[in-house]
């Protein structure tokens, strides 16, 4: 895909400003639902950056997996744990924020310095462009076959682990009365077992 350089530059500037502004708002906005939707926007513009880099397959994977799966998962999590709660004030929170911001700026300065002064071996070989998808397939089934198979095992493990962790165990019979317990998925008021007692 050959785009004129000026078009490429304008697209890069627009997409990168969406990424930066969106991610800052994801971190800073009060309402977590806005954050989740802005996160979807950030993922979409990162997919646009991949398209600028001639990687259509990874851009499609980014849209499918991140926007379609991870972001929806995060929205469901927000829906399941959405409770308006007054956060307890914590001592020294402001100082912590300023201190960590200073450390992050230091890290940023270090990374940007490394980015700019390292003599990258440019220009590299000519990019293969449209052939990229076929080349990824060749890689996945020849020299990256073992990581590919391990990734499938990892996904299976993650799926089973998520089910086991998120399941709520309900006994079939009430221990006290011997009656059959209602097994439906209705949200019942359950007894929290690990309530924080340190504050009172």
């Amino acid at each position, binding site marked *: 895909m050959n785009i004129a*350089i000026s078009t490429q530059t304008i697209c890069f500037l627009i997409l990168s400003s969406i990424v*930066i502004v969106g991610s800052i708002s994801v*971190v800073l906005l009060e309402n977590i639902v806005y954050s989740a939707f802005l996160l979807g926007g950030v993922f979409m513009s990162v997919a646009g950056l991949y398209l600028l880099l001639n990687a259509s397959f990874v851009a499609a994977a980014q849209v499918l997996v991140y926007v379609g799966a991870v972001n929806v998962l995060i929205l469901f999590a927000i829906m399941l*744990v959405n409770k308006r709660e007054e956060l307890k004030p914590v001592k020294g929170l402001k100082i912590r924020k300023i201190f960590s911001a200073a450390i*992050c700026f230091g890290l940023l300065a270090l990374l940007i310095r490394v980015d700019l002064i390292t003599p990258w071996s440019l220009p590299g070989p000519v990019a293969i462009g449209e052939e990229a998808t076929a080349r990824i397939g060749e*890689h996945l089934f020849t020299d990256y076959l073992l990581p590919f198979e391990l990734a499938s095992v990892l996904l299976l493990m*993650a799926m089973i682990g*998520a089910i086991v962790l998120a399941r709520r165990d309900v006994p079939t019979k009430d221990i006290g009365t011997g009656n059959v317990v209602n097994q439906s998925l209705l949200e019942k008021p359950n007894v929290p077992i690990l309530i924080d007692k*340190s504050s009172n």
Partner: protein
Amino acid sequence: MFEITLQYYLVLASLLFCIGVWGLINSRNAVRVLMSIELMLNAVNINLMAFSAFIDGQLIRGQVFSVFVITVAAAEAAVGLAILLSLYRNRVTVDMESFNLLRW
């Protein structure tokens, strides 16, 4: 008009990564912590893709790596949100400051 080189992508990825780190440290909502982790993983992916396009144009090993990173990120999100759900069930809060189960 100036041309977009490798360094622009690297600086963008550094900015995104540092925003993710700050959010990871300072969020009090556990869901927002998971979002910050996703932002950091995306920054790494942008790095890999930029290197793959500008330095490794023929073999594009960076693109294969970012496919793997996307896979691991999906698995991480699923397990992380399951852990978050079970924590919420037991503690009835998502405040990171009240998760002190491992503190002695």
